[in-house]
């Protein structure tokens, strides 16, 4: 069985159905990005995996364990961490407190402080601002904090949702570089939702294209980038 396996998942919000029987699987160490218009169901897939969006039918398996129906906080304990859309840092807490909360599922304090040092190495900016209230930082710094916070739980799988939203291209590049580094050096698997199609194709090795809650195309990122459909609709190239 694959590292992450989603089978025929149907899910939605209230009366609306966001995913109509989506299936996909991922191997350990992969970088997968989800492509598609707003409302196509990209975020829903990520939220289904993290447990924020309940599954109506279908199954979600993570490392041989069936996790659909689990509460979000239990799934975190398995090593699945989400960098949520809109960052959702705790604005009225310090950078340090935010990171500390990221490590809620870890019990070992020695291990905790070691990871904290790692995160500060990856994001020196966070180290400088460890006593600052998260809500007073710039959007880019908050996004770094959100990524750093998700690393604190020592995840095996990171789900990221719209990292680039509202950020300057350079900062976005910086954060993705860090994510790539984490993927290559630490072997953390990445499942990414990215609105900017160009970026999404660049940072991933595999890509799934969604339309109206269904996966309509999948393949290696470089091949997808060359496909007619993606070029026309998502890259606006003629």
């Amino acid at each position, binding site marked *: 069985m694959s590292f992450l396996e989603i089978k025929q998942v149907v899910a939605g919000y209230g009366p609306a159905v966001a995913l109509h029987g989506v299936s996909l699987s991922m191997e350990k160490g992969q970088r997968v990005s989800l492509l598609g218009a707003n409302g196509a169901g990209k975020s829903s897939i990520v939220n289904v995996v*993290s*447990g*924020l969006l309940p599954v109506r039918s279908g199954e979600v398996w993570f490392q041989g364990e069936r996790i659909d129906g689990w*509460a*979000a*906080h239990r799934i*975190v*304990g398995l090593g699945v*961490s*989400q960098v*949520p859309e809109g960052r*959702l*840092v*705790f*604005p*009225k*807490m310090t950078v340090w*407190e935010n990171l*500390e*909360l*990221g490590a*809620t*599922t870890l019990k070992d304090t020695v291990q905790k402080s070691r990871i904290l040092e790692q995160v500060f190495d990856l994001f020196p900016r966070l180290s400088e601002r460890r006593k600052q209230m998260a809500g007073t930082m710039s959007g880019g710094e908050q996004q770094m904090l959100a990524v750093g*916070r*998700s690393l604190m*739980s020592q995840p095996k799988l990171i789900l990221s949702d719209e990292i680039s939203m509202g950020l300057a291209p350079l900062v976005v590049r910086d954060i993705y570089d860090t994510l790539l580094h984490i993927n290559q050096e630490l072997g953390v698997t990445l499942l990414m939702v990215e609105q900017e199609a160009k970026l999404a194709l660049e940072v991933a090795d595999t890509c799934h294209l969604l339309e109206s809650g269904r996966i309509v195309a999948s393949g290696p990122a470089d091949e997808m980038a060359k496909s007619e459909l993606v070029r026309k609709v998502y890259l606006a190239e003629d």
Partner: protein
Amino acid sequence: MFMQMAVTGLVLGSIYMLVASGLTLIYGIMHQVNMAHGVFFMLGAMATYYATEVLGLPYFAALFAVVLVFPIIGAAFERGIFRNIRHIWLAGYMATVGVWMLMEGLGWQVFGTEQKAVSFPITGLIKLPGGAVLPANKLWVGLIAIAIMAGVYLLVGRTSLGRQLRAVEQSPRAAELMGINADRAMAKGFALGVTLAALAGGLVSTLYSVDPSCGSTPMLKAFIIIILGGLGNVTGSVIAAYILGFIDSFGGSLLGYHAGHFMGFGLVILILIFKPSGIMGDE
């Protein structure tokens, strides 16, 4: 005379602060205005009365028993009634009204209508600099209230439980993603808030005699305080509690009970109209 009133204001303010802090905590974490807060105050007072005057426990042992028992009571109410409806603000509000009615009604049946008083272990008068003379129990109650508040402040500000509570307050969704069980954290927050109300009841029962409706006035004061302080704003509530304590101490004795009442509610309306975020709020 002035000193006397000032010290009385401080004591009153400290007690109000204790009642209001529980209300603030519950509003902050669950976004629910707890109309049953006064009932838990009353239950705390009654528990203290029965533990000391009927069972003969020492006063401080009774307070300790309150600390042990009320978190369980609070958590039970949260789980039994409030958890499933907390996302609908009106339902949540009305449910707390229902609990208030139910428990106060039962209170009259069980505890009876006669007034009950608890004696404080330390008696006598204490002379304060500036010529004020205060009964020892009043002063001690004020000090204990401040000590409890300091404890709560440390609990919420410094411990990992406190961090989790604040995380849930700021974003339940993000808290879940940190691996925090938001439901359980909310139950803990509610239990803590209820326990603070009960402790306040246990303290006040040594100053004034109590009956099953004794929670309403402190609850009204607590509402005024949390609105004045800005719903969910702790620092604001502390300042507001002392403002109200002084208003009641000075205004109450200078203008009479009704004027104090009128001023309190008038203040609420003015604050809500002109600065709904409260005195410390930022907009």
